């Protein structure tokens, strides 16, 4: 029993990533935060899914009608998993749901990208596509192995920005998304959130930090933080009729005002972590240590379960 609970840890340990997500979002340079949180989310999601798959094997191999070899569910192994039968049965629909949700996300990703690329077919092959549309929008459309990424912007969006500096800010922001390959981080955290709902706060955090990352790159490219702040603010005000895609904002302010406020402050330092000797530093280090331990123990319990299974299976 003592060892048994260990096996369920990878499923709940993603909870410990919440404090680090919050702190990284507020305190770290957005680039560092994006990479850190995406890697953490990816590792925790893989561990959680492996754990789920192993529970399916151990918990159900001996049930009548199951095609898995009985040896895969050795009594010794089953004894190590508490409530093996219930856990095994419950993990089947859970695993199916995870796999289905992840495939759907991947498929939707490919479909949207292909449709968007196809929409632009026949246009001159330039890095920026300006489309005549009275609805303001601007998107970074990632390329593929054979195509380079493109920036798609509507005439309505451009006309709400004043002066070439604000327009340059918009283009620099979108170009930063393409150059930094931000869509990959976003895909990782989206898949992770599908694999384990406890990882959703990391998805929200990374969605925000990639925007901040692009804002910072744009501010550097344009040479004015305020120009970027103005461009974001004006774009948000003309786009405000758009339907809400996110849930109600629980934080005091939504992402757009926070981005603008951040740009009105001095540029963030690239220094990785705050000192341990401040309250923030101590909290950051504690949260980071907690996340590392979670990831390691997730991984180790998945490996342990795998080894136990392998030992019980005469191959």
């Amino acid at each position, binding site marked *: 029993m003592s060892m048994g609970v260990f096996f369920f840890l990878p499923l709940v340990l993603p909870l410990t990533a919440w404090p680090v997500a919050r702190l990284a979002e507020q305190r770290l340079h957005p680039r560092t935060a994006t990479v850190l949180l995406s890697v953490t989310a990816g590792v925790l999601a893989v561990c959680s899914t492996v754990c789920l798959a192993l529970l399916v094997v151990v918990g159900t191999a001996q049930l009548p009608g199951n095609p898995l070899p009985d040896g895969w569910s050795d009594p010794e192994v089953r004894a190590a998993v508490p409530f093996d039968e219930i856990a095994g049965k419950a993990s089947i629909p859970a695993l199916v749901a995870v796999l289905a949700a992840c495939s759907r996300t991947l498929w939707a990703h490919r479909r949207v990208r292909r449709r968007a690329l*196809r929409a632009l077919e026949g*246009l001159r092959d330039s890095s920026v596509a300006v489309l005549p549309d009275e*609805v303001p929008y601007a998107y970074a459309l990632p390329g593929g192995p054979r195509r380079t990424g493109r920036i*798609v912007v509507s005439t309505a969006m451009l006309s709400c920005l004043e002066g070439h500096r604000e327009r340059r800010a918009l283009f620099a922001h979108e170009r930063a998304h393409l150059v930094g390959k931000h869509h990959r981080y976003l895909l990782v955290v989206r898949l992770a959130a599908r694999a384990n709902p406890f990882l959703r706060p990391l998805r929200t955090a990374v969605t925000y930090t990639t925007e901040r990352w692009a804002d910072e790159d744009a501010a550097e490219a344009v040479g004015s933080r*305020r120009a970027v702040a103005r461009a*974001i603010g004006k774009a948000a005000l003309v786009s405000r009729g758009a339907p809400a895609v996110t849930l109600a904002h629980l934080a005091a302010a939504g992402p757009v005002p926070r981005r603008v406020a951040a740009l009105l402050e001095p540029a963030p330092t690239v220094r990785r972590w705050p000192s341990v000797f401040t309250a923030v530093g101590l909290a950051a280090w504690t949260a980071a240590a907690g996340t590392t331990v979670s990831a390691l123990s997730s991984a180790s319990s998945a490996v342990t379960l795998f080894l136990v299974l392998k030992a019980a299976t005469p191959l």
Partner: protein
Amino acid sequence: MGLKGDGVVDRDATGASQRPRPHRRGRGELEAQVLSALREAPGPVDTAWVRERLGGSLAYTTVITILTRLLAKGVVTRQRSGRSFVWAPTADEAGLAALRMRRLLDGESDRQAVLASFVTSLPPDDERLLRELLGRAEEPED
């Protein structure tokens, strides 16, 4: 399932008897080519003219299909002329691309998965806060 209708027209599966083409063109590309042919025309022209203009390698029915699709999108108009139709453009290639992009943006709830938007929606409280912040951003640069 959903992969169908998304890809390239005239896949092998649709008819082995079809003439091989040197370059298999996507649906979007064909639409744009037909539209640009119409835009180069001296006035309203019939389907045969468009087909000729595109090199004559496309099947007549394919050209009709594309023209009908463009008509449904409101990018071309047609008028009866004798026993057939003559076609004229009402938008350019960028207009066509804009239409297609809008369809994608309006119809895809998953678009955030791929397309990182410049800004997200703005609740009323955020709007008030944002206007205050913009006031600060408008101050002259130090």
